[in-house]
């Protein structure tokens, strides 16, 4: 069995009386896509937020590459190799697509406390950023401000930024949402290959994509993981069918 890159143990998060994360334990192993599925409001995004550091868990632990993430803020976790995309696109809206990716390239290269050299003509930033845009198929939109991109294009840009960080694990929160059938198909093929660069914790509602991609699936309902297993195991699991798949699968 491959070693766990990311390990969640008994993670807990309450919003008032609501148990948004209720004792979640799961892991992400090298080379795999681990899909996290579950109905709306199950707590999938809340889980991603805790891993990436934008929410603090009430209990439990998160270990990434053997290191406890407690006390590290979002930026520190990103520097250690957690690359995330957001369910609701979170970009610098006035920057062009290219400059959004350049920011990630710059962060990966190290210090941002450089005050004189212009970034616009810095090939060590523009070339890798352009390469990432090409990988997600946005190269023709490189000079369009993020605010003017279509919804689907913004999703692609999110992925390009995560790629540019060269992360050791990807946390992708519904990257397919709003992409349309062609876009989803394209991204599915893309993620299929991406797992060999770094494992992916994939939150996704698109079941075709999940069943096509996932090495393992965890099903989250009311903050609890009710099942973890291979695609076939999950499809066959009666509890999952009842709670989530609606018995139609």
């Amino acid at each position: 069995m491959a070693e766990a890159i990311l390990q969640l143990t008994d993670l807990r998060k309450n919003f008032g009386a609501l148990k948004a994360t209720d004792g979640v334990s799961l892991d992400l192993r090298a080379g795999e896509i681990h899909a996290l599925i579950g109905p709306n409001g199950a707590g999938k995004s809340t889980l991603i937020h805790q891993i990436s550091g934008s929410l603090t868990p009430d209990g439990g632990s998160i270990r990434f590459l053997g290191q406890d993430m407690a006390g590290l803020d979002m930026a520190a976790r990103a520097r250690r190799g957690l690359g995330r995309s957001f369910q609701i696109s979170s970009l610098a809206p006035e920057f062009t697509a290219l400059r959004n990716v350049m920011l990630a390239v710059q962060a990966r290269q190290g210090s941002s406390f450089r005050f004189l050299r212009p970034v616009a003509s810095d090939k060590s930033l523009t070339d890798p950023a352009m390469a990432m845009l090409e990988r997600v198929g946005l190269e023709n939109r490189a000079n369009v401000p993020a605010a003017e991109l279509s919804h689907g294009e913004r999703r692609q840009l999110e992925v390009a930024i995560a790629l540019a960080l060269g992360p050791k694990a990807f946390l992708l929160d519904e990257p397919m949402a709003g992409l349309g059938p062609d876009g989803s198909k394209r991204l599915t093929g893309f993620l299929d290959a991406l797992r060999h660069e770094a494992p992916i914790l994939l939150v996704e509602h698109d079941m075709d994509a999940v069943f096509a991609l996932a090495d393992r699936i965890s099903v989250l309902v009311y903050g609890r993981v009710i099942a973890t297993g291979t695609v076939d195991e999950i499809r066959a699991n009666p509890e999952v069918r009842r709670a989530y798949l609606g018995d139609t699968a």
Partner: protein
Amino acid sequence: MAVSRETIANGVLALLLLVVPLLAAASGETFYITLATRIVILALAALGLNIALGLGGLVSFGHAAFFGLGGYVAGILATHAFNGEAVLFGLPATTSMPVIWLVAVLLCGLVALPIGVISLRTSGVYFIMITLAFAQMIYYFAVSWPDYGGEDGLSLYVRNTFPGVNTTQPLPYFLICLGVLATAVCLFWLLRGSRFGAALEAARQNTTRLSAVGIAPFRIKLVAFVISAMVTGLAGALFADLNRFVSPSMLSWQMSGELIVLIILGGKGRLFGPIAGAMVYVMFEYALGDITERWQLFLGLVLLGVVLFARGGLLGLVAGRARHG
């Protein structure tokens, strides 16, 4: 590459700022040189604030603290030098502008650091209020400290000196100030285009995004705040020398507000925004100030127009929307 309309507008402003005082000097109208110097210094103060406010989105309502501190550095050092006394711990006083500038810039940086560390834990309206509160503390400190004039302020007997220049003459002093402003404009341009500038502008637009790529927004904003305070402090030192007078009014919240107004008028985050803003402001003050004490009412109307109809400021009106290549 085509020259953008903003670049042309900037060129026109730069030319005006140089040519008008030269013409005034040629025709002996020294008053206009003083007016132009006032524009240049206020523009420099606002350019400093523009780093925090325009680039970083940090609406500091306390930048008068740094403007005033810079002014008091010039006033206090000059007073002690005039009396032939040491300043502190036997350190000699001086009337040399470059030394005074250095002290003003360093002091403002030192003061801005803790203010920034505390204020930047908040954002939005709380940030505005905390920066205001710090500035008010410094204001009341100056008012209640009798050694340096308290409420009445402090006069400089003669303008401080600059190697090889007769600073008591209006034109040479104007040119010194213009040189400082030109340098600051170049540095602002470099900073905005640099990696730091990219991170700072990203912090303004979306701090979550900046964190998600692994850049901690706090440190970026803090450094911007400190640099911003240093530039405004330098302007304060020049302002004291222009008027040969410093008083707590340089530290007042009205002054902080004035600096914000200059930026909004000219265009937030724009290279020449503070210059355009200062020109309009000082011209209003001059043209209407004699006619009515309520000239600020008319300025208020212009400001209202700009905020409602030209969010990019007056420069945005001529140059169109800002582009981020």
